[in-house]
């Protein structure tokens, strides 16, 4: 059978959406880190530097959440002494940073990516496996994936 592509204008149809997934980067171990390279499907829509900056900021925020330092050790020791019941009452540092990440992604979506028809999904909604990027297309559907 023939496989053709038609421009959206010909079809007179509303914009479709496609999704691309930015996978985790395990080069430094099991810490939460995503690839920062701009996917080919987004090359025409987003500035490479802007994208890399967004991804790098996300990576930095996750690194902050998982940082092994005085604060995390103190939290761990306090939890151990209270037989881990303290986590039932208090919010952990990780959870606080996750909220910060949600706000950052929302902010980036509103200011930079939504006007270009792109939507970043918070990785926590995908189990920190991928950064799901939804592309809303209004032009030839032959572009992208």
């Amino acid at each position, binding site marked *: 059978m023939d496989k*053709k592509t038609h421009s959206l204008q010909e079809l007179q*149809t509303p914009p479709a959406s496609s999704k691309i997934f930015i996978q985790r980067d395990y080069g430094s171990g*099991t810490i939460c880190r995503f690839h920062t390279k701009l996917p080919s499907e987004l090359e025409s829509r987003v500035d490479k530097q802007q994208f890399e900056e967004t991804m790098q900021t996300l990576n930095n925020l996750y690194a902050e959440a*998982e940082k092994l330092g005085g604060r995390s050790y103190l939290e761990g020791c306090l939890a151990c002494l209270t037989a881990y019941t303290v986590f039932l009452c208090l919010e952990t540092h990780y959870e606080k940073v996750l909220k910060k990440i949600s706000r950052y992604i929302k902010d980036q979506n509103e200011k930079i990516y939504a006007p270009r028809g792109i939507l970043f999904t918070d990785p926590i909604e995908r189990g920190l496996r991928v950064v799901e990027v939804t592309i809303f*297309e209004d032009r030839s559907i032959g572009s992208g994936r």
Partner: protein
Amino acid sequence: MKSCEYQQIDPRALSVSPQSAQSHPETKAQRPRRKWEVFPGKNRFFCDGRIILSSHSGVLPLTLGLIVVTCGLFFAFDCPFLVEHLTVFIPVIGGVLCMFVILSLLRTSFTDPGILPRATPDEATDIEKQIDTSGSSSYRPPPRTKEILINQQVVKLKYCFTCKMFRPPRTSHCSLCDNCVERFDHHCPWVGNCVGKRNYRFFYSFIISLSFLTSFIFGCVITHLTLRSQSGKSLIQAIQESPASVVELVICFFSVWSILGLSGFHTYLVASNLTTNEDIKGSWSSKRSAEDSGNPYTYSSIIKNCCATLCGPMPPSLIDRRGLCLLKRRPLLHTLQRSSCLRSQPRMTQTWRRTVRTSLCPAQPEGAPCWFMCTQSTKDVLERMLYSSDFHTVCPMGPSKTTPLGLEVPGSMGPPRAPAICPRHAIPESAGNSCTTCGRSRKDSLHSINPAFRLASPSPSLTRANMALSDTQEDGFIPFS
């Protein structure tokens, strides 16, 4: 570019469509379900998702019973004598240890060990496309692995057929719980749960404190019996006066060796940043390849390894047990009522903004109505695209190209010439004819009905639309079939 007419769809009107109400019985609102109620793994949940337990709870009741019974006998029969003859701190220390043990045990058993949620259908399709470049599909593809470099060392990631994703490093699939667990250590029948990234520290504190408790009780009972037999009585007489002590002695004697051994083993694992799973498999053993035999996750310092494993930041649960699922409905029929023979096209930028703006509502577990609306507006856009009267202009693929890429999709291998029903008007289409009401061709019906179509790679427009629609399945929507 043609100028497009913007037509706004009022979401409120979608829910009161009489035709859809009579055409399908499930359109009325249902109680929003929490995600734990639809969790695919073999777990049990209590307290509305707050407590998670494996379905194979093993001998957890026995473990609890042994600890409670032993401690109870200790406080009842040994402590009065020891308080009188030694010090009052004995029951205090015993009490603190007992509390610590029970709390650690409960925390280990009732905590999510680090379960990874399964891949969404979109993700699974994306991964399938990357793997299966040849296009041919077999019933079960060979085991898939991906090699990556971690700290200059080659590590193989395996593909999990159940969870439809490449397992992150140190993650393993527990067959008892049917979940992929991060930093999987082992499935412990004594605690009735997997031991993984999130509850390893609880497990370790449980076995360490239990070692102390067992040793303490063992020592106290020996002291008790010795003191009794010293005051002019024989050992037999002392035992007769305090028979419960014998019971405690037997329990502690047989458990102290195994628990001390286990504690020592896990102390070694913590110090070298290994898991039981890795140690048993010999993943980083020096007997393997001489070049890449080191553990890539170790910090090369015992103290740092211990701190990282036991005192590191507490990662969150990834499965969002108490989040709300979207209500199950048939969105296509609702939308079709509004979009029948819709030929106009919303203005692109406005549609984007409306769709994207409403999609920006934070996906909070309690904010289900907001998220419902967000997804609904996005889906409306996509469904209108699929079922508009101009759909048939997109060239359909033949049956051979709708073969799924090795994924298990029910009904995916349905006959290509299955009788089709026009989804818009529920009118059966005779072979070769199109629906008389909307002119929709039979081939279009085949594409919409055949769920395999979502996973195969026909024309790009249909791929995206169907892939986006497959979200509806993930989110609790029943796709039209």
